[in-house]
Every structure is written in structure tokens, then in C-alpha cells.
């Protein structure tokens, strides 16, 4: 398959919704092996792994069968305790230079990262900071899943007492940022499919795959005609443009209006609420107060978000 055709399929997902179903026969035929994945959870709500389970075509079972070998996952692996640690160490060795490291969550750095311990051993505690730095060294790709991992997100929201940072801020190498609070499962599954088939996807200046984050919400919003004619909603629940209700669509890069959520059925503006800019580097501090129109959100009195900086 041509890369161009693949990308077109992904972009057209709004029409069919099920582009990856079409892709699966191709994957089965041409693939030599699945993508080995080590998934580490750090400072996060666990919403991204729940959202992954909302993937349809491929459903989770198909993802395990055809797309990835999920070698380590705190949420889903059958093994536990020392067995799980052993599996992680073996996987990192066996697939050194070949595995994809998925990090779900921000990385606290204050007090040497003691605010987030991935697991404890007789030799000592392993913090998220150590795990991400170690596993990041020998990964082929590093993928930040969700806005906390991508930019700090809610975990790094002011006053950020744990010193939570993005994965990129603690790892001096390229990190593919699949932001969103949570990720739309298509964004992550599509990114992993791209890595398996073609390697690194084209990234925007924030390190996000262009094919999902290439345009603003505003550009593709179904309610754009209301905005263009100044027909703004009087309140939440109104059928008109949500700009007056705090919508961040004009400055938020994501394909929600096309792709939509949970089997491509709905998205926040369609539910007559504002987009709150959850894929943005300054989410949530740059979006609050959520229901105040953008021009009046004003300079952020809460101070700048500290977790989302690019790597020094």
C-alpha cells in the first residue's frame, strides 16, 4: 500500500469510521511481526488505557492479535509482582532497539521523582523518572499517550506540587506526542499502525502526528457557519456556535469534528458544550475558566503551565 493511500484512508475516517478494519487484511499479509510495545503508566488518571479499550475495528482483541505485542502493561498483563518485573526486564533486553515505549502520564521530577513509584523491589523503588529514562534509551520509538505524557496536562496543572513534566522534558530524544485528555483511540492505534507499516509519521512542530493534529477543531467544526455569521450560543445546550461558551476550537489542533468519539458517534461541541482544548500544550491551565469566552480568559492569572516545555 502506498503511504499516500494509507494517509488518505486515515483522513477519510469520518466517512467510514472503520478505516483500520480495511487495513487489517493488509497488515496480516505483509507484516513480518507485530510492534513490540512496553506500556508504562506514570502520573495520569488511567483514562488513556480505558479509551484504548473503546477502540472499534480493531477492537482490543484484534489489536493484540494483529498490531501489537503488549509486553508490559500495568493495566492488562496477566502476570503480577516479581513475574511482571521479570517480564519487563526481559522484554527490554530481548527487544532492545526494537520496542516502542508508550508512556501514559506525566513524569514527576520533584524529590527525585518519589511522587510516582512504578514498582518496588528488594533492591529499591523504581520511580517513573528512572523507568522512563532507562526504557527510553533502548526504545526504537517513544510515544507519549495522552496530554499528561505529551505536555504535563492536568497532572502538571498549577501549582504542580509534584513537579510533573512531559516525557519529552525528561528524555533527550524524539518523543511522538499523541495528546488528548484522553487520547481518541484512533489517534493512538493509528500512530502505532503507522510505526509498524512506515515508521515515524510526519510530526507537527509540537511533535504530534500531522495526520491527526494537522488542522484546528474550528476549521472543521459543523457549527462554523454559525461562527462566521456571528450567531453565537446564549447558553450551554444551545444549537449555535460555542465560542461564546468558552470554546477553544480556534486554537486547538485535533480532528474531533471529523473523527468523533467512541465508535465515531459524538464529540463535545455536538453535545452542545465547548471544546476545552484538551490536546493543547497548555491544557488545562490555558483553557480555564472553561466556560469563559477565549478573549476574556485573559492572561492566565494562575501563571504559566510548567510541565509542557520542550526538551531543554
Amino acid at each position, binding site marked *: 500500500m502506498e503511504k499516500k493511500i494509507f494517509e488518505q484512508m486515515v483522513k477519510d475516517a469520518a466517512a467510514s469510521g472503520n478505516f483500520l478494519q480495511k487495513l487489517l487484511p493488509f497488515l496480516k499479509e505483509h507484516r513480518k511481526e507485530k510492534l513490540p510495545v512496553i506500556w508504562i503508566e506514570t502520573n495520569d488518571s488511567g483514562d488513556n488505557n480505558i479509551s484504548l*479499550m473503546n477502540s472499534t475495528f480493531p477492537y482490543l482483541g484484534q489489536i493484540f492479535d494483529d498490531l501489537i*505485542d503488549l509486553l508490559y502493561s500495568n*493495566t492488562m498483563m*496477566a502476570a503480577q509482582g516479581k513475574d511482571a518485573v521479570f517480564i519487563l526486564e526481559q522484554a527490554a533486553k530481548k527487544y532492545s532497539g526494537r520496542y516502542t515505549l508508550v508512556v501514559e502520564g506525566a513524569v514527576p521530577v520533584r524529590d527525585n521523582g518519589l511522587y*510516582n513509584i*512504578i514498582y518496588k523491589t528488594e533492591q529499591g523503588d523504581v520511580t517513573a523518572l528512572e523507568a522512563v529514562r532507562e526504557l527510553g534509551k533502548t526504545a526504537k520509538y517513544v510515544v507519549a499517550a495522552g496530554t499528561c505524557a505529551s505536555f504535563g496536562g492536568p497532572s502538571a496543572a498549577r501549582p504542580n506540587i*509534584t513537579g510533573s513534566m512531559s516525557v519529552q522534558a525528561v528524555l533527550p530524544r524524539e518523543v511522538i506526542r499523541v495528546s488528548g485528555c484522553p487520547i481518541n483511540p484512533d489517534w493512538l492505534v493509528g500512530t502505532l499502525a503507522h510505526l509498524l507499516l512506515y515508521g515515524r509519521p510526519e510530526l507537527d512542530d509540537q511533535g504530534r502526528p500531522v495526520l491527526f493534529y494537522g488542522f484546528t477543531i474550528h476549521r472543521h467544526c459543523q457549527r462554523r457557519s454559525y461562527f462566521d455569521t456571528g450567531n453565537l450560543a446564549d447558553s450551554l445546550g444551545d444549537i449555535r456556535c460555542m465560542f461564546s461558551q468558552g470554546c477553544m476550537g480556534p486554537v486547538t489542533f485535533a480532528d474531533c469534528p471529523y473523527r468523533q468519539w467512541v465508535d465515531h458517534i*459524538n464529540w463535545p461541541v455536538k453535545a452542545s458544550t465547548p471544546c*476545552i482544548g484538551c490536546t493543547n500544550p497548555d491544557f488545562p491551565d490555558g483553557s480555564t475558566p472553561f466556560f469563559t469566552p477565549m478573549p476574556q480568559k485573559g492572561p492566565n492569572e494562575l501563571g504559566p503551565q510548567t510541565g509542557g516545555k520542550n526538551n531543554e
Partner: protein
Amino acid sequence: MNKKHLIFSPVTRLSGLLSVDVFLEKGVVREAKASSTFFRGFEWIMKGRQITDAVYLTQRICGICSLAHGAVSSYLVDKIYDNEISENAQYLRNIMFAADFLQNHIRHFYIFSIPDYVRMPSHPPFHGQNKADLRLDEKQNRSIAENYFEAVKASQRCHEILALFGGKAPHQHSFLFGGVTAAPTADKINRALALLSSIKEFIHSRMLPDTEIIAHAYNDYFTIGKTPPRLLSFGLFRFGPKNERVLWESGVLVNGRIKPLQPELISEEVTSSWFKQVETGEPIPDPRKPGGYSWVKTAKYDGEFVEVGPLARMLINGKYHGSTSTMDRIIARSLETALIADLMEEWLLRLKPGPPPFNHKKTPVRNSAVSITDAMRGALLHRAILTGEQISKYDVITPTVWNFSPKDQLGKHGPVENALINTEIPRNVPAETVLGRIIRSFDPCLSCATHVVTVT
């Protein structure tokens, strides 16, 4: 002095990060310490923000029970603005809440619990499964492993109902203060009913029979992992224009007697938690505190530890009659799943097609409020103090805090630690296998245990 120290870490297949230290003597657990090993500090994050930001922001506390936080903070904001919730909004809110309950319970039973009892396929992420005490026959193993992947689809459909009205899931948008911003139109009601019909089919033809198979094959777990019979519920499914009624009653069950809930009897302490007590103001996070071993604080009711969750709700409401063991917790959760699916159908049929049932008042009438509900894992409380419309203080007490309370100042243990202590580990079975089953029956979610505490 022949105690063997075992660090059970990571306890996988749950939400968040958990490690448990146990000390064994002659194959019996003598001491247990459950450590929640990550901290986010959400209550600090809330300070200085608009109170109306609470619904979306607090949902970010938890990925698997996000709407529980959205619901309880909506009730809280409703109180502050004295909102009137229309009947249609009441039904719609509870339909959405029920949808999130169903996905939680189905995912917990299959994705988190089933690999404790059933031989899974050998490919990742099931590789390295310990098979020392798997008791089902080949046919049962195969059928339940297949149902694991059906459960993935059924729980996706639960979230599809939630997103149908709520815009997305997790972290839905339309269930807000003042009602629901989405219109309950005929097509949406019809679609939700069709999705629900397939979910109910799954619950009755797969989940309940699978629960029975496991309860039968592992019936020793009716005596393993028992907690003292002290349980608490804040009640579930709020109705009424002021969210004043609960469909499933709140209450406290102590030694077989149910007493009315008195929220003023709730107390908290930080003896074994990683917080430094200061003279005035809030305790300060201190990951190096001597004697500390968890980010969870110690929560008590009337000076005693209490267990929360589906078992507590079902016992207090007379919908389940059993004990407080590992298997009782699992069965109560499965039975509750079926009951909630029935309720949801009833509410969908009562919903009247119409415009968005949403009406939020603009002027606050109070500067503080407390709201409570049961969430999937048990009792959940939010409390706010405002300056104008800005949050000056926001507290959250989550279900996990009740169940995973670390030791108090007298050295007494909370429910989960209590359930582990005195457990006998059979020969030839790894301790983790037995302990993991007990721990997971509480449906642990450490993502929720993320906040700074107020000790009064």
C-alpha cells in the same frame, strides 16, 4: 521471628499503581501494608479556579470512574447556584451514570479479575500468567477467555451510550450543573436502547454464568479475604429537583444493623500517610516521612474503619445476603451490574424526547457545599469553599481512601489490609496469586487516591 517479607509489586490489573508489603509466618499473613505509590494533588490544582470548572477538571482524577466525579461535582455546583433539575435531566443524568457503572463493572470483572481465575491465551499481554491454582476445565477456560474479548465489546457499547449523550468518554461533557446539555431525541433513545439490549444479553448470558462458574470452582474464597462486618454507602442514583433523593439508600451497616448515615462522623488522619502534619492548615506531602507508606490517608466513620463498594450497597439495600469475603464482593458486583442495566432501561423508556434539559442559574446563593454519592467503588464526597465564584478550598474523599486506608495511630488496619491479614497461603501456590485475588475483589483504583487531605 521467622517472618518472611514479601514485596508484592506491582499489583497489576487495576487502575493506578499499587504495591503491598506482607510478612508471612508459617504460610500465614501476619502483617500487611498497602502502598499507593503515586500522588497528583488534585485539591491543590482546584484552588483559585472557577467552581464551574470542577465538573470537567475533577473527572480527570480518574479514567475508569470519571463520571462519578463529574456527577458529584455537578450536585455540588447545583447546590451553590440553587439549580432546579428537570425530570428529564434527572433520568438522563442517571442513564449516563449507569452507563459508566456498567463499563466499570464489566471491565473490572473480565479485564482485571478473570486472569486470576481462568487460563488465558499464551500471547501478550497474558504471557507469564501463573497457572499454579487455576481450577477450571479446558472448556470453561476457553469459553471465559472468549468472553473476555466479548466483554471488551460490551464495555465499549456502555461508553458508546455515555458518549451518545455526553459527547465523549471517558471525561464526558454534557452532564453538568443545571442538567444535561444534550437533547434526548427519539433516535438517541432508540439507539441507546438497542445498545443496552446487547449489553444486557452479554450480562445475562455470559457475565452472570461466568461469575457462577468461578464462585463454584473457587468456593474457598467465600471464607478468604474477609473483612470485619462494618460497611458504608452514601446511596446511589440521585433524583429530585434538588438532587435530594437517592434511589438506593445510604447507610452504615455494623454487625447486621443498619444505621442512618451521619456525615459529621467522618474523620481522617495521616499517621501512616506520606503527609507531614502542620499546626495550621493542610498537611504537606512528604514522600520521605518516617512511618509513612502510602499516599492514601486513613479515613474512618465513627472512629472505625468501614468497607465501601458494591457489596456494601447491596447489603445495605437488602439486595444481597451474604458475608464480606472475596467472593461475596465479586458476586455482589456482578449482580449489581444486572440490576443497574434493568434500571437504565426503565429510565430510557421514561425519558421524554425534547430539547436539552438544561437550566443553570447565574448567581451563587451559597459559598460552600458538600455533595455525596456512591461511585462504582463506593462512597465519594466532594466539598468546596468559595470566595465569590472562585474555589478557595476543594476536598475529595474517594472510595479507595476508605478501602485502602493505611494503619491508624493505634496500629489498626483498614479494610484491605485487614482482609489480607491471617490469610493462609496453601503450599505450591504463590502468595501473590491468593493476595491478588483478595485485593482485586475491592476493585482498586489508586488514581483516585490523589489528593491532599484535610484533617479536622
